[in-house]
């Protein structure tokens, strides 16, 4: 069927307009990140003389400055320790609890399930004072362990909720056949359920890693000494201290902080979006 010429033209004009709008939005989304990258390769003099200019002599000096004098090197190591430890604990504890609360019978299962999930709906900001007091009583203020335990406690609810959605979807015939084979419930979990859940656990782990790597709040309240700082709080410290006017070095620090999560996103985009979209349905 041939379309009349006017209609083809209108269609093309519409597509053209749409392309322009999408391009404009893309530019708005990308531009601030790109500007930061270009700024990180300049000198402060160049930044103030020509904010839009390209670096006349691009160097990585700002990055070394951020890592070394800006304490970003230490902060990256701290963040890796804290994020990876928290993610590991969550990845072990959450699937187990999710399996138990969705596939096994036990007394008070409903109450236990609600207790495990409630934290997802509570703003941790509300309890900052008692949380700090708790860590103080445990002797864990300004320590990585205190931070890790807090991250595990407040990220488990989402992880459990997410894993539950997976375990609920497994056919019960699998569980029945395991029972017939005489496997204990632990063996059933370890030998059958957990291997099946591994891709979902990976999704949870990636989302948790990004969230914890990026977290500012808990680190801001619980950490005191720069040698313990994680990346986001160190970033803020770098912009308010002695190097408060060294915008080009700060730009480099911002990029260093964002590289790990951006790389993860580029590799696991589909998984991350799927997991994040779950927040809408998890509620």
């Amino acid at each position, binding site marked *: 069927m041939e379309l009349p010429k006017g209609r083809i033209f209108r269609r093309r004009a519409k597509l053209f307009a749409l392309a322009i709008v999408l391009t404009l939005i893309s530019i708005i989304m990308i531009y601030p990140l790109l500007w930061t990258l270009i700024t990180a390769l300049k000198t402060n003099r160049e930044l103030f003389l020509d*904010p839009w200019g390209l670096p006349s002599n691009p160097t990585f000096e700002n990055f070394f400055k951020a890592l070394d004098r800006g304490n970003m090197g230490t902060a990256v190591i701290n963040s890796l320790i804290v994020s990876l430890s928290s993610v590991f604990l969550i990845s072990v504890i959450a699937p187990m609890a999710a399996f138990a609360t969705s596939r096994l019978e036990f007394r008070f299962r409903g109450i236990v399930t609600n207790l495990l999930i409630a934290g997802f709906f509570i703003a941790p900001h*509300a309890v900052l004072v008692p949380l700090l007091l708790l860590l103080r009583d445990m002797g864990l203020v300004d320590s990585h362990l205190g931070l890790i335990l807090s991250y595990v406690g407040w990220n488990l609810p989402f992880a459990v909720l997410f894993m539950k959605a997976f375990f609920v979807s497994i056919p019960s015939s699998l569980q029945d056949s395991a029972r017939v084979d005489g496997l204990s419930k632990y063996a059933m979990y370890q030998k059958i359920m957990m291997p099946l859940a591994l891709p979902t656990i990976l999704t949870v782990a990636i989302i948790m890693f990004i969230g914890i790597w990026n*977290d500012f709040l808990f680190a801001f309240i619980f950490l005191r000494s720069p040698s313990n700082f994680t990346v986001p709080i160190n970033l*803020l410290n770098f912009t308010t201290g002695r190097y408060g006017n060294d915008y080009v070095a700060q730009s480099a620090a911002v990029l260093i902080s964002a590289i790990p999560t951006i790389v993860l996103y580029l590799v696991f985009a589909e998984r991350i979006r799927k997991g994040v979209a779950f927040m809408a349905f998890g509620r």
Partner: protein
Amino acid sequence: MREKNSLVVSKFFTLKGLRELLDSQAGFLMALPALVFAVLFVFYPLAQMFYLSLFRWNFVSPNMVFVGLDNFTRMFLNDQVYLRSLLNVILLAGQSSAIQIPIGVALATIILRYRRVGGLFWAIIFLPYVVSSVAVSLIWTWMYNPYFGSVNVFLRAVGLGFLARPWLGDINTALIAIFGTVNWIYIGLTTTMTIATLRSIPPSIFESARIDGLSGFQEFRKITLPLLKELIVVLVIIDIAGAFKFFDLIWVMTQGGPSDSTHVTTTWLYRAAFRASEPGYGSAIGVTVFIFSFVIVQLLIKFTRSRLTR
């Protein structure tokens, strides 16, 4: 009787008996580690927050002064900044819903309709969400910088130099500037949640619509929009809960200033509890944050669920 008791006791001491006991309690035992974390780090502090909210204290003094509900009356009757922070939270939730949801829905339908370009576009608009809020806040503080900030450089370049100003330092524009950054971060998330919802619609519906000769807009209005209704309700609820969880961006960009005009409840809570060393008052603010964000949101969820599933 004696026999039976010894049987129960001996159950613990044989390997087989122990194994059976452990297996019968497997569900609870496997949930236990998570439960310990929930009780210790979520519910115990939550209970203590309610308790502390009834006291005047300064973190270090051994005697806490019981003041009843004074912290709450002070908050609602005498604390202008707290009331302002509540208004800001409402504005934040309102503008997020009003701006992000329509744009997010439009972008989601476009992405799903033009798959090839759409995939790349989707990847781009979601990118800011994976960058830390502190990094994003710093980047946008520079965007708004009066000397080298791109916003002002752009305005001057296109002849609108009279609009140039220190966006975050100006009491009339600081909040708007923050909202701009908020939308820049979260538009990708809203779009992604919408796409996930639309993808749960069987594609055959769209195919038959196309065969019936529905235009893109008609298709959107007749099929997509009704199916989106529940999602929109969910997104509004997320925006409300999110506004009460808002902290990082405001703390890094303005610290609640200028003249305390950009505080949200969480930043004001932080100021009260940790800068002014009034953990009792801070906890009282926490109680209101909890009630507004948790209780009201749960009620909203229940209300909309029962209405939507009827």
